[in-house]
């Protein structure tokens, strides 16, 4: 089993996975100020966005719900474990995870998902099964024990009168980079234009000579690469074990269902539901906070089947 050189837990409390969405708010010994509460809300939204972005990329373009999403998160987190175990710079885990996720995602799309595009329910079952297999393979290789990774960033930063976790501020920036990067990819590149054409009208895209198979493959690879990257970014916030991704799967799924195929809608959903999660966790109960995203998503979808997709 690979044990990272520095296995000390991060300076933040490593949150235990809740029933639906792990409550990733900072835990303090004193009452939160308005500023720290505000920062908790936006950084929690950022973390939810990072975790859900890969799932949305795949669902938005391919209309496939990748239920192996949690497994790809776990794969990414274990890339951080491997990087630490080899004594490498912990930041190298980010490109390693993206490449690993993308390559494995490419193989998955080609062998498992591609024959099932016309059978989305079967695709859900197949990817769910794949997630179980990946989890078991990780267990076989690394064991069931919780792993610790070296912090990407530690310490605090002074933000508008509040001392706040530097890493969570970094997560906010990372979410912005991922969101803007994906927006550029979709709006500013030919790949994005082709992907949007496929979302709107795939038969017409094919009739114009677009290589829809290749575009689907690349999109799936980007989605799984992005998800594995998110797995690395989660490691300072949550413990790493073979089932860590499962706790994030349902929350990500609910957020993506609410957001439809829009990254803008996903950002708003993460902000609204993440904010509610922070408030419930802080003022009522962290346990109830863990189910806030799922409950609110179900309520929104009950009221409007399109959720925030029209935003």
């Amino acid at each position, binding site marked *: 089993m690979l044990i990272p050189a520095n296995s000390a837990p991060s300076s933040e409390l490593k949150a235990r996975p809740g029933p639906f969405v792990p409550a990733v708010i900072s835990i303090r010994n004193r009452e939160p100020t308005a500023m720290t509460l505000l920062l908790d809300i936006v950084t929690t939204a950022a973390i939810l966005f990072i975790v859900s972005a890969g799932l949305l990329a795949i669902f938005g373009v391919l209309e496939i719900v990748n239920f192996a999403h949690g497994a790809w998160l776990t794969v990414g987190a274990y890339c951080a474990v491997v990087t630490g175990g080899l004594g490498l710079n912990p930041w190298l885990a980010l490109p390693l995870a993206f490449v690993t996720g993308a390559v494995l995602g490419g193989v998955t799309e080609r062998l498992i998902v591609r024959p099932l595009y016309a059978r989305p329910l079967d695709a859900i079952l197949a990817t769910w099964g794949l997630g179980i297999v990946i989890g078991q393979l990780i267990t076989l290789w690394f064991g069931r024990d919780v792993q610790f990774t070296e912090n990407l960033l530690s310490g605090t930063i002074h933000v508008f009168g509040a001392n706040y976790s530097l890493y969570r501020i970094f997560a906010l920036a990372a979410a912005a980079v991922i969101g803007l990067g994906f927006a550029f990819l979709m709006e500013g590149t*030919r790949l994005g*234009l082709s992907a949007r*054409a496929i979302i*709107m009208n795939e038969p*017409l895209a094919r009739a*114009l*000579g677009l290589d829809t198979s290749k575009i689907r493959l690349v999109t799936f690879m980007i989605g799984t690469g992005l998800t594995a990257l998110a797995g690395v970014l989660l490691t300072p916030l949550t413990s790493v074990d073979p089932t860590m991704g499962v706790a994030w799967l349902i929350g990500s799924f609910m957020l993506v269902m609410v957001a439809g195929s829009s990254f803008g809608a996903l950002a708003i959903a993460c902000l609204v539901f993440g904010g509610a999660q922070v408030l419930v966790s802080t003022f009522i109960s962290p346990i109830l906070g863990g189910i806030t995203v799922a409950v609110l998503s179900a309520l929104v979808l009950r009221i409007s089947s399109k959720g925030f997709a029209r935003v």
Partner: protein
Amino acid sequence: MFDSAETGAKLALDGVSSGYGTIAIIRDLSLSIRKGEIFALMGKNGMGKTTLLKTILGLVSARAGHILLDGRSIVSASPKDLIKSGMGYAPQEQPLFTDLSIRDNLRLAVPSDRTLEAALEHVFGHFPFLRDRLGQKAGTLSGGEQKMLILSRALMLKPDLILIDEISEGLQPTVIAQIAKALKAEQSERGTTILLVEQNLNFALEVADRWAVLKLGEIDDRGVTDASSRERILEHLKI
């Protein structure tokens, strides 16, 4: 004269059958279209005209027969390969990405942005109104303008063969005249071959060199466009 082995045929179909699921739409159809001619394929609704175009383009698989483009079999070719090899397609059903701009609709027709500006200049020559409205969403164009955009997109790569599906449907005579002018210009200036599926008899006879009438997936009649064509075709199109 319509033998699939006809010398100089741009497109030749020999005993082609195709359809959807268990339903046969095109039955043992043979047709030859010469290089540089405009060929009008007519027929009532549901006779298989659109299915035939989709079969040629590889969007519907041929179950039997041969399809030859410049003498080479294209039965197993993908739409991507055929577009790349010089085929253009102006579809009738859901023909535009209505939420994309005119520019992006046209951009999707070229494989690389490096060739975009030259291709745009080519279609601006036929339909100058597009030049000033590239940023406008395609769905906000009038019906006639949308049809001109659909045709422009098919012309972007300066194809050797264009398949056009009922482009004149529901259009004013002035717009139809503009489209006819563009098609005749492509034919005379570049020697483009055009397979035109139509229900508008006046438009078809104005531009086509030859014609055929499709009935229940088979060629019911065919001929060279002349003074007798109208009567013959009307006879087949009677309800």
